[in-house]
């Protein structure tokens, strides 16, 4: 089982709202003061891939990212989680690649790196939250795909996929190659790397590729060729102020709480 997991480094989405600032000129979040982390759904994907490797009794997991040199940190973390190989496609030119550009670059890299049975991406990024890259990549590679997958199991010479739906779940089967978009569940919470593996991760090789090496033309993925453009980014005003229920005892406070809730419940029913 040869698995490719696409991971993306983003500004820490746990940054509290009060520390969140916008760089108005670039129409993006101000990176000052915020950590960079691997997108959580990419870590769920890594975890799912590593579990699949175990369940299949072997195989190879490759983590790939398209990003600036600093994105190496995310790949080191993936190596510490015990992926077998890590690849950085260096982006030192394009400030805001969109999903179509990213999909084309990742597809070129996937083709160059070898035959993958399964390509995994996260359901969406915690920064812009567009959830587009997986679909674009599946189209580029001509693979069948399934979204909102939270479990992958070997199934004879194929794969069994379980996914979440609006009000339940579905099971699908597919013969590789295929692509899945991973979402979170209780079983793919990313593992915490062991100290020894963290140390090892800095000694493992990490392959770097340029767009030239992948034969991706600049015009195909460059700035100014995006399918859409951000025209405005702002923090919306909020004007709610919370009234804490008052009372001399817990009983009094809860009575006040109950009265307010009852008022609304009674008006609805």
């Amino acid at each position, binding site marked *: 089982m040869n698995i490719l997991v696409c991971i993306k480094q983003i500004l820490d989405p746990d940054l509290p709202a009060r520390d969140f600032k916008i760089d108005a000129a670039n129409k993006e979040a101000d990176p000052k003061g915020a950590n960079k982390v691997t997108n959580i759904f990419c870590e769920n994907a890594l975890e799912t891939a590593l579990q699949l490797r175990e369940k299949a009794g072997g195989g190879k997991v490759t983590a790939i990212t398209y990003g600036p040199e600093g994105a190496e940190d995310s790949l080191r973390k993936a190596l510490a989680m015990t992926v077998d190989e890590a690849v950085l496609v260096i982006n030192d030119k394009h400030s805001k690649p969109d999903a179509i550009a990213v999909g084309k670059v990742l597809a070129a890299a996937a083709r160059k790196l070898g035959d993958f049975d399964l390509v995994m991406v996260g359901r969406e990024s915690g920064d812009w939250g567009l959830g587009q890259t997986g679909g674009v990549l599946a189209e580029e590679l001509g693979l069948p795909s399934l979204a909102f997958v939270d479990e992958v199991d070997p199934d004879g010479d194929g794969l069994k996929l379980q996914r979440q739906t609006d009000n339940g779940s579905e099971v699908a089967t597919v013969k590789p190659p295929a692509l899945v978009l991973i979402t979170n569940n209780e079983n793919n919470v990313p593992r915490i790397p062991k100290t020894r593996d963290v140390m090892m991760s800095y000694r493992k090789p990490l392959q770097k590729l340029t767009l030239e090496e992948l034969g991706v033309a600049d015009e195909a993925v460059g700035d100014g060729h995006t399918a859409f453009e951000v025209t405005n980014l702002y923090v919306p005003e909020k004007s709610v102020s919370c009234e804490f229920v008052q009372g001399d005892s817990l009983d009094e406070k809860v009575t006040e709480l109950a*009265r307010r*809730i009852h008022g609304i419940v009674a008006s609805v029913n």
Partner: protein
Amino acid sequence: MSRVQIVLFSKNGWDRGAQGVAGAGRRLADGLGAELHAVVLGPADDALKNGLAAAAQKVQVVSALEEYQPEPALAAAASLCDGAAAVLFGNDTYSQEIVPRLAHRLGGAPMADAQKLEVKDGRIHVTRSAYGGKALSEYVMKATPAVIWVRSRALEPAEGDVGGAVEEATVELPEAKLRITERHEEAQEGASLEEAEIIVSGGRGLGGPEPFEQMLAPLADVMHAVQGASRAACDAGWVPPNWQVGQTGKKVAPELYLAIAISGASQHLLGMGDSKVVAAINTDADAPIFKHCSFGIVEDYKNVVPLLTEKLKEMQS
């Protein structure tokens, strides 16, 4: 004449989501001076056909797609939506799955979770959340077609009746390499989260699955509420994943949202920000949830919830 296309899945019928998509499609078509056409993937019932025919000039039904399979559904959508200026979907599982692939297949631009659509100078502008709900972003769509899934339940239905024609569409469907073989629907009592008027939601601070069952369920019962949860509670396996409210969970808009032991991370707020009234029970007076509440109580839920349940019962009798 150019056209706007809406695509619906027959499975969901003429629900509030379908009505929101039709309304958004009608207004977008009017804004662009275009016709509105609708595609139904799967055998449509009369309510869906009639609802759509009131909003769209033409309704095409692909009955051959008896059950949703990703590849045939995508192929049918691609063949029927080719040439449209814009294609709109709702926010159900299948729509979200199809949009990016369809956009790329048609050479267009994908967009997710649109909260507002506008036409300015003949171009489509979209407003949506970004950075986990900490910001709002606006986009102009450049490639054609713009293929967009909208937060459909929050959008107004269409007005009037254009008296559209309904026809059966025959499209060539490819063999599915990936096959959905099992479908499990959770038996839901009463309304779904998205349709609920009252929601009682629990978070990590509950500490385990038992409080959901033993304390929040009886409270939800007296409040005639549907139960929800934060991602932390779902990830812990305390409640099913489809209870999750938030950026990557359900988008809800009840009259009352009661958040119990939920901190109010921006990603959670993104899913419940359209609630009329938000109330919270939390031990931490500085929890961000209180910045988005009308009223709240700073107390341990263990002390509040059973007492509150009892008092509500008394008030109702």
